[in-house]
Structure formats: C-alpha cells, structure tokens
C-alpha cells in the first residue's frame, strides 16, 4: 500500500507545534521533534540549537524502518516505542498512527516514566491532527481544487538549474 503525499498547512503546523511545545514543558524535555516516517522533519520544539535536525530526522526514520523490519521477522507488526539511554542525554522515540515519529530528547532533569506518560497523551493528540490532515488531503484531491504545483512551468524547473 502506497503512502499518500503529506501536505501540511500553516494551521496544521500551529496545532502540531502547540502539542509538542506543551510536551517539552510537561515532560521536562530538552527537545521534541516530529518526523515523517519517510525521514522529513515536520516540526521541532525546545532546546534544539546545535542539533542537526535534518540528519536526526533521516536517521530516526531509518532506525524506525530497520526495527520495524526486525519486528516483522519475529512476527510482530511493529516496535512502536524505542528508548536509547546515553551518559547524559536520552532519546525516546514513538511511532504515532503508523505514520509519524515523535522524538523526545531528555536528560536527568526528567525521567523515562514521566516522558512515557506525557508522550502517551501527546501522541494521541498528534494522531488526531494527522488523521484530520490526511482526510483534508483526500478531500482536496477529490474536489479537484487547484494546487500551486499545477502551475509549475517547464521554465520554472529549468530556472532551478540555470547556474
């Protein structure tokens, strides 16, 4: 089954951001990231300076894909929760609604128990937002509303490569 294209509008982004900003506070986390399963960063919140977010997104998606493959080998559908413990910082990674990955970076100001608890609530909220998002994308596709990309000309594409 092929994934549908992910389209995110400003209002969707604001909703997602509100959820993860609250998660940063509630879980005492350093930073929270929302990553598409294909490795694209969707949103970030908290203390994320100095973190290469593009690489983080791509590697998280690779890790989720690899462990998902492992899960299938032993007859599980997925391993939806991953926890990586470091000397100072830890990573808590959750697969939400089989499509979105929620990454929480935290240190000893928080605890695994607290992060788990808060992620559960935030994950539920994000699942709803993304469900609405894909319904909206389907509605738009069905309505035949014009997309800005339908207007792209061959010249526009050529201009990208003009130098």
């Amino acid at each position, binding site marked *: *089954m*092929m*994934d*549908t*294209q*992910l*389209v*995110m*509008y*400003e209002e*969707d*982004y*604001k909703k997602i951001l509100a959820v993860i900003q609250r998660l940063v506070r509630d879980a005492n986390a350093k930073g929270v990231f929302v990553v*598409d*399963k*294909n*490795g*694209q960063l*969707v949103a970030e919140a908290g203390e994320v300076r100095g973190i*290469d977010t*593009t*690489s983080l997104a*791509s*590697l998280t998606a*690779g890790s989720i*894909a*690899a462990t*998902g*493959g492992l899960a299938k080998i032993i007859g599980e559908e997925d391993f939806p929760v991953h926890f990586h413990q470091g000397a100072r910082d830890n990573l808590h990674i959750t697969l939400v609604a089989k499509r979105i990955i929620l990454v929480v970076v935290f240190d000893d100001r928080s605890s695994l128990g607290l992060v788990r608890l808060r992620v559960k609530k935030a994950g539920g909220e994000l699942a709803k937002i993304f469900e609405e998002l894909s319904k909206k994308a389907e509605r738009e596709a069905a309505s035949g509303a*014009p*997309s*800005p*990309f*339908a*207007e*792209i000309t*061959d010249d*526009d*594409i*050529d*201009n*990208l*490569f003009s130098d």
Partner: protein
Amino acid sequence: MSFINYSSREINCKIVYYGPGLCGKTTNLQFIYSKTNPDLKGKMISLATETERTLFFDFLPLALGQIRGFKTRFHLYTVPGQVFYDASRKLILKGVDGVVFVADSQIERMEANLESLDNLKVNLREQGYELEKIPFVIQYNKRDLPNSAPLEELRRQLNTLNVPDFEACATTGQGIFETLKAVAKSVLSDLKRLSR
C-alpha cells in the same frame, strides 16, 4: 512521497540511488557533496562498514532553490548494493519520489547490473510502485575504464524503458550533476502532473 509544507513553504522530495555493489552510488553522493555550496547542503551521513561498504544508507540533503515561492529540498539516499542487504534496500525505497539507477559499465558487471535492476523492480512493486510510472533515470558509470562495455550495449540491455540516461565517471564528476538534474526535473514534473 514528497512532503509539501505550506507553513515553511518547502517541498521535500526523496531520491534514491540504486545499483549493484561497488557501482559508485556513494561516490556520486560524495562528489555532489564536495561540489555543492555549503549553504545549500546539510551534513552527509554514511552508515558504512569498517571497510567503507555501505551498510544501510548514505544520506545527503540538498536545497535546489525556489520554485513558485517554495524552497525545493531533495534528500538523496543510496542503498547498499551487495545482494544480501536486500531487506535494507526495501526499507530505503519507502516513500521514494525518484530513482537513479547507477550501472557499472564494466563488461564483467553486466550480469550484476541486470540482477540489480530486476531487484529494483521487484522491491518497488512490493511498495506499490511501478518503475514505469515513477521518475527514473539511468547513469552508466565508470566510462573511463578500459574494460567498459559499449554504450549501445548498455542501453540495449538496461534502458528498455527509454528513460533519460547519462555516461559518467563518478570519481572525476563527469555526468554526475547531469544525472541529478535530470532526476530532480523529472520529480518536479511529476509533482506538477499529479497536481492537475
């Protein structure tokens, strides 16, 4: 599948470099990385073995400029070419927007090219894609080697779909950006077509 972000006004697309082991997929990305303006690229990640064979994937994020007010960002991935890494190849193809098949021009690698191309078709089909329907270009790499097969022979055997194809030498960079441009154009044209 591409990710269209109206909030940051960005289009993100995923391009996968596929091909048999040691055909030069990683070298393609390394050359692009070395010749791209630092403002336009992110860090290149290589998940490789100690002997520098690709273990899982290489990853290179590139920005290509604006189109209709949207920043275009391409995420380039390679797959591990060795036959036994098939499970990893399947994972990397998930969500792909365009494919570059890097063929090894050496006569003795023809069989490996055909096997890898076949493997690409099978793995794409498993994800619900048809090679015939997605943006796809072919690169004949290692044209500089004395034992490379004639171009016509490579074309006849590998380019049965008659897609854009390019001669290349990834170590010197010949044909590398031409290949990238062709697949990027094809991905954007596809986005335009799907939007209609």
